[in-house]
């Protein structure tokens, strides 16, 4: 679905954390995963911006690995603080989702 940017804004960071938690990965792979999931508007730059923020907040560990094409890639893995942040994200998500569904079904 398109034009979700505004709505996705608050949860995209949580989505990126979740994807990284599954396996160590890099920016473009995360972008493609989100596109395949049904968010075509998410571009590489958006994910890269989130990754910079995660790095500044010290939620990820970074390893540089050579790539077949171009400069070495930065691979991201969650550290303990990142895992804790992800747990809090899902907690908040469950709360918001349940309240919004409640509102929808209340009529």
């Amino acid at each position, binding site marked *: 679905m398109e034009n979700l940017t505004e709505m996705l804004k608050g949860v995209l960071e949580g989505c990126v954390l979740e994807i990284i938690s599954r396996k160590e990965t890099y920016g473009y792979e995360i972008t493609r995963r989100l596109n395949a999931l049904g968010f075509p508007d998410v*571009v590489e*730059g958006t994910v890269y911006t989130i990754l910079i923020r995660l790095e500044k907040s010290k939620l990820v560990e970074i390893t540089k690995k050579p790539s077949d094409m171009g400069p070495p890639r930065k691979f991201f893995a969650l550290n303990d603080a990142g895992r804790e942040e992800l747990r809090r994200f899902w907690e908040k998500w469950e709360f918001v989702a349940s309240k919004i569904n409640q509102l929808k079904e209340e009529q």
Partner: protein
Amino acid sequence: MLDSFKKLIIGDMEEKRAYKQMMKRVDALPKDYRFAFRKIQHYMYSVGPSGGDMTIFTDLTMFTDLVDLFEASAAESRHILDVIGNDVGKFCDEFMRASVANTETLRERINKEVMEKFNKEGR
């Protein structure tokens, strides 16, 4: 003494060298990427970061991060718009916001100042 005097007159040589080196990397990008980079840089200098922390322009980390992204994407021949999206201004704002160090932003300062005032006086 002489060093600080030189700095005052001609600026920090190290900073200038780092900036020139970074711009050389920009010049080496494919032309679509180069065009986008210059537009983005111009926009960022014009509007400034939302938190008002101008140090992101002198420390260069933000711009080198951007060059890193562009080099990697260009090497895999992706279209520039698949990297920065259609709302480029928004991309710039978000990018600057992510790059501002964890210092107190103007927004945090106004919150603190107003809250302190009313917490002191009660509601």
